[in-house]
């Protein structure tokens, strides 16, 4: 019969013995070793020049086709917002169908299929703002995923494992930018991944390729010679919703205070 004293002793010994091999995992963390060896990998970032965007919506079309998001579904990985600021100080915003077909109506879409007409004379300023996933450095969506189905790669892009996502929607709730949605076919979380399958092969993203005005550019922040990096480092750029502490990596030129 084992006595209480010897049971306690043996348990402590057992726990201590377990701690040694477990601490090796910390000492020889393969991820960290790899990171220490190779710091030269890219950090993908995005640059949007809102002054060049005309709201044609080709980027949205290109994205939907490239990434197999059903064309007529009312969800999209990237979209364009239209801002109209009137003389009374009000800001009118819309993005009909994510601007997949551009902005066919002059009136502002206010939901229920209704349009709000605004007279040309009442407009102080108007502009377009393309939106996409910010591939945050501190991504809240990755933090809240209960099964680790969404994760951040070493080059900064946040990806989703479609074979592992349980579809709880916590990441959708956790994203302050509203970029996530449920894929209508796969029934798992879905979002923009900077066309990861393209950029890792040296190509541009589908939206960058579709933009005829050069409003969208993708680049590598770790390469000082990259033209995108040069703009980010030398010009006055801004990011969206900095107050959430997500450290977004989509940089904007010509951002206005009205932008949500």
């Amino acid at each position, binding site marked *: 019969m084992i006595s209480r004293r010897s049971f306690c002793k043996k348990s402590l010994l057992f726990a201590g013995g377990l701690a040694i091999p477990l601490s090796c995992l910390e000492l020889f963390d393969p991820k960290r070793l790899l990171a220490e060896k190779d710091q030269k990998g890219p950090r993908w970032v995005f640059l949007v020049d809102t002054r060049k965007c005309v709201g044609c919506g080709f980027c949205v079309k290109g994205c939907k086709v490239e990434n197999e998001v059903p064309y007529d*579904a*009312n*969800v*999209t990985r990237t*979209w364009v*917002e239209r801002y109209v600021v009137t003389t009374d100080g009000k*800001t009118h*915003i*819309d*993005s009909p*169908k*994510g601007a997949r077909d551009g902005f066919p109506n002059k009136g502002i879409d*206010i*939901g*229920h299929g209704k349009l709000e007409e605004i007279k040309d004379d009442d407009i102080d300023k108007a502009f377009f703002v393309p*939106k996409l996933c910010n591939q945050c450095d501190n991504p*809240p969506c*990755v*933090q*809240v*995923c*209960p*099964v*680790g189905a969404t994760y951040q790669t070493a080059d900064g892009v946040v990806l989703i494992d479609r074979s*592992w*996502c*349980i*579809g*709880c*929607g*916590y990441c*959708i*709730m*956790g*994203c*302050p*930018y*509203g*970029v*996530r*949605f*449920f894929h*209508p076919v796969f*029934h*798992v979380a879905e979002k923009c991944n900077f066309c990861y399958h393209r950029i890792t092969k040296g190509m541009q993203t589908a939206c960058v390729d579709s933009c005829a005005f050069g409003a969208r550019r993708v680049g590598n922040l770790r390469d000082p010679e990259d033209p995108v990096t040069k703009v980010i480092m030398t010009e006055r750029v801004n990011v969206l919703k900095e*107050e*959430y*502490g997500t450290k977004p990596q989509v940089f904007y030129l010509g951002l206005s205070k009205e932008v*949500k």
Partner: protein
Amino acid sequence: MVHGEAWTIKEFFTYPNEYIYWTIQIVMYPFMTGLVAGAFVLSSLYHVFGVKQLKGIARFSLVFSFALLPVAMLPLLMHLQQPLRGIEVMMTPHFTSAIAAFGIVFSTYGMIVASELWFVFRKHFVETALALKSIEGRSALQQGQYLLFSVLTLGAWDISHEALEADERAVKKLAAAGIPVACFLHGYAGFIFGSVKANALWMTPLMPVIFICSAVVSGIALCILTYILTMEIRKQLSRRRRLAHPELPSMEELKSAEAHVVAMTSRYLLMFMVAAITLELLDLIFRGYTAVKSWDILRSVIYERDFVNIFVVQYGLGNLVPFVLFLIPGLTIRRAVVGTVLVLLGVFMMRWNVVIGGQAFSSSFSGFMHYVLPLWPDNMETLKEGLVGALIVAGVPFCIFYVLNKVMPVFKETH
């Protein structure tokens, strides 16, 4: 059709991908876990703190808490887009997520309640098994029952006075350990919401505490209500049975026991209700006073769009009216029934106003979303995340309780 499009109406500017993704099942989830935690805390008041007056309802609420437990998981499963992968939350938890703790907290709590129940009902298991054993030529049903109860004893057949006293000590310890775990189980449901920094209405450190307080309120209310209903049914049954067995308790005895327990339990209900309302109002006042960026849209949701849901149904009907009903001296059973039903409505509406209200505005702060509850299902999605799905979740615990009561009779006097 995109998930969420069927029940979301958008107004003004919302981001294209925004829909009401968390629907009635996510309202049911904290409501059900709240009932679990509340029922357990009520039973612990007797087992740990020795509140003798609660003896009648303590065992009842413990079994009921166990019946509610599997149902706390059901709404989550019905809400998942990939329900078959739901088990991965337990198998491959990602611990930076609040939901990942679910498996651990849930199973710890389940084990505590199960072992406490075993200690409480061990004597009954042994006695029943022995009684069945002594029957010569058992029928197939009796043989099945005999096997079931023998297995339930787990080989511990000793029901001497010392052994039963040891059981009682174990129950006390388990009940004491269960209180923090029950609070954690539910407080953590509050944490799931309170930690979403992207949602202006949810994000507050008070959320877990508010959830716990309202959980205890709803748990006690449901226990009182179910207790009254079962006692009424027993009264009707005993009226018939007493003709054959005059030794059974009379109608008057049952009635006075019932009134006494209800009056006593409602005192505790009131105490927790005061705590819950205080915290909720503190949260509301603090938001208005600090008036950060999100306050403009929150104000229009709280004071305009959801005014009826929040101030009329939740605070008025669900809190103020039952508060007055319970405080008027000379509490009658009928008044207690009305009061507890209203309290349950109030807590349900609180969950609703948090979950649905939190999604009533766009994270652009420039538009609104309105949730239309699918009443009649026209496909699997509206079945699971509509009224029918919610009613299934609400009905299942009573079915489980019915079965559990066959094995662990809550009204039979044990030791």
